């Protein structure tokens, strides 16, 4: 789960990480109300959960309140990577002497939370990682001990020279780690972390993602969720025990198992087709799940054929087939469907499915080819 920059800033503040003052506004009127009359340099930032908003014109400076209102007018409602800007952050701009990067991630290789820091702040860290990986300092954190102050200081010492700044930075690292752990975060970045000319260390921009599997114990984080339209669909699917991701193609797929679902998409592509989605219905033979899955799948108007790919394991194919038949009886659609059923009790399952009159095949390859053909014939 992702949150907006302004929400990350609020969490930073709650944990004592210093951030410049700022207000979130949903309209130009709100900017007029909330921003003080004082002339000072402010930054108006689109609140969208995608990268590259600066390049897209979603971040603008303003020296007066009037100018801030003007910039807000420009940014509110603009589209950034297909997302409409509905909120902006109007924050005090600070003078910057130097920019740094600090972030925490769950590292697969060390199987630990890893702190990354760099004196190359303000740019995308992935770029730094590619061009000059030696400029990124990494430290794997022992989960039993947490980020100890002396370790945080060791990192800070590589970025700052002055004892006071070292202390400020180390303190921010320790607090960011506490925030990361307390909220079951999967990414917490301060980029840039800046040193101001008056020697304050501040967090200017922040990004936080959270572990979906841990949301059950993160009531406060869930409450922050502001999903866009596509994400909303994915969240609804999750609530029904399904895993759904919309893609740009026209062949819908419904598969049991995530790996098999990916392999199914790949195969459609391999044979020249274009998958419309990733959709994993999991291991149950419950007809309702198939109905829910089909409804979600068909809500995408690009879909002009559907491939159902089931491998029966512990759940036997005949059970799955009965579930499918029950579900297909409820679903009324013009979109052609091909069903592939394989694995345990496949023969019995195929017999049952035949009663639906739908095309039934035995292998994934056949199913993919059929789905592509059906799709082409519908164009």
């Amino acid at each position, binding site marked *: 789960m992702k949150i907006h920059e302004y929400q990350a800033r609020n969490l930073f503040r709650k944990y004592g990480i210093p951030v410049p003052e700022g207000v979130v506004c949903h309209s130009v009127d709100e900017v007029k109300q909330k921003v003080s009359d004082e002339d000072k340099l402010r930054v108006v930032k689109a609140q969208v959960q995608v990268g590259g908003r600066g390049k897209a014109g979603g971040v603008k400076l303003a020296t007066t309140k009037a100018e801030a209102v003007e910039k807000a007018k420009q940014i509110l409602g603009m589209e950034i990577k297909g997302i409409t800007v509905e909120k902006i952050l109007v924050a005090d701009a600070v003078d910057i002497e130097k920019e740094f990067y600090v972030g925490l991630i769950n590292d*697969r290789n060390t199987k630990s939370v890893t702190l990354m820091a760099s004196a190359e702040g303000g740019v995308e860290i*992935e770029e730094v990682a590619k061009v000059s990986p030696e400029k990124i300092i990494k430290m794997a954190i022992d*989960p039993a001990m947490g980020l100890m102050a002396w370790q945080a200081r060791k990192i800070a010492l590589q970025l700052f020279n002055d004892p006071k700044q070292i202390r400020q930075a180390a303190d921010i690292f320790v607090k960011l780690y506490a925030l990361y752990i307390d909220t079951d975060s999967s990414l917490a970045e301060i980029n840039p972390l800046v040193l101001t000319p008056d020697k304050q260390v501040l967090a200017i921009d922040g990004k936080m993602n959270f572990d979906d599997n841990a949301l059950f114990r993160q009531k406060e984080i869930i409450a922050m969720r502001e999903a866009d339209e596509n994400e909303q669909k994915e969240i609804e699917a999750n609530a029904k025990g399904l895993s759904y991701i919309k893609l740009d193609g026209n062949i819908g797929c419904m598969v049991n198992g995530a790996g098999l679902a*990916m392999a199914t998409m*790949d195969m459609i592509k391999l044979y020249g087709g274009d998958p419309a989605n990733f959709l*994993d219905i999991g291991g149950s033979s419950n007809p309702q799940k198939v109905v829910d899955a089909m409804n979600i799948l068909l809500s995408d108007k690009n879909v002009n054929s559907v491939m159902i790919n089931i491998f029966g394991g*512990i759940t036997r194919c005949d059970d799955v087939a009965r579930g499918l038949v029950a579900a297909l009886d409820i679903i009324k659609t013009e979109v052609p469907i091909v069903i592939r059923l394989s*694995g345990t009790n496949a023969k019995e399952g195929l017999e049952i499915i035949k009663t639906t009159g739908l095309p039934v095949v035995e292998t994934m390859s056949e199913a993919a080819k059929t789905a592509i053909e059906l799709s082409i014939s519908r164009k």
Partner: protein
Amino acid sequence: MSILINKDTKVIVQGITGRDGAFHTSKMKAYGTNIVGGISPGKGGQQVDGIPVFNTVAEAVKATGANASVIFVPAPFAGDAIMEASYAGVDLVICITEHVPVQDMIKVTPVLKKNGTKLVGANCPGLITPDECLIGILPGMIFKKGNVGLISRSGTLTYEVVNMLTENNLGQTTCVGIGGDSVSGLYFIDLLEMYENDPETEAVVVIGEIGGDAEEQAARFIKDKMTKPVVAFIAGQSAPPGKRMGHAGAIISSGAGTAEEKIKAFKAAGVPVAKEPREIPGLVKEKLGL
């Protein structure tokens, strides 16, 4: 021979009285797995399907000499269940539970190391040494004893591939579903090393997917350390970046973890990569000169 488990493996089930735990315990038992006990706090002394139930893992280990434990408890309690098994001295722990928080797995990691515990999973279908021992939720009937090892990050895709191997008369020594999470127990390299040292395994099939760089590491390991042939398949070639494809670990982040990179790494290590699953048996046969 085989790796990790065989007919002498004594298995206990954590969460034996739960719906999934009870169902798969009977399946495992039916397959022939030596299930010696189950754990359900407060139900110690009872029996499930003729299997004695204990209050704690430590009690079960003491009474039965169990050396493997399979976990079916709900996600919020799975990390703790792994620790209980590890502190009780169980050698091999298999965590079937999906949706375990990453922080819980991270917390478990140094405990496993300290106690010398091997973990498979979480979010995995388990593992099987055909005709000897099945631990987890794998459909036993599609497996066949033989000389091919298999490691996979996926569930049903594994069954799909195993089914093809078996149909092509390529039986298996041990098949291990390592799970789809980003932070897991045993991984490709650990298992490749075991297969390399297992006299009976003649070839290994690796089923990877997008996310992380474990496949790249495996490719380097194969190139540097392995004498036995390996065949690979990578799922997720058509997956968009930044999206979690069902598995918590299957996500392409900032251009890293793509299928292309993984395929390239395997090919550079001399590992043939199947374009689609049905090519796998042929590639294995080719490598084995069959």
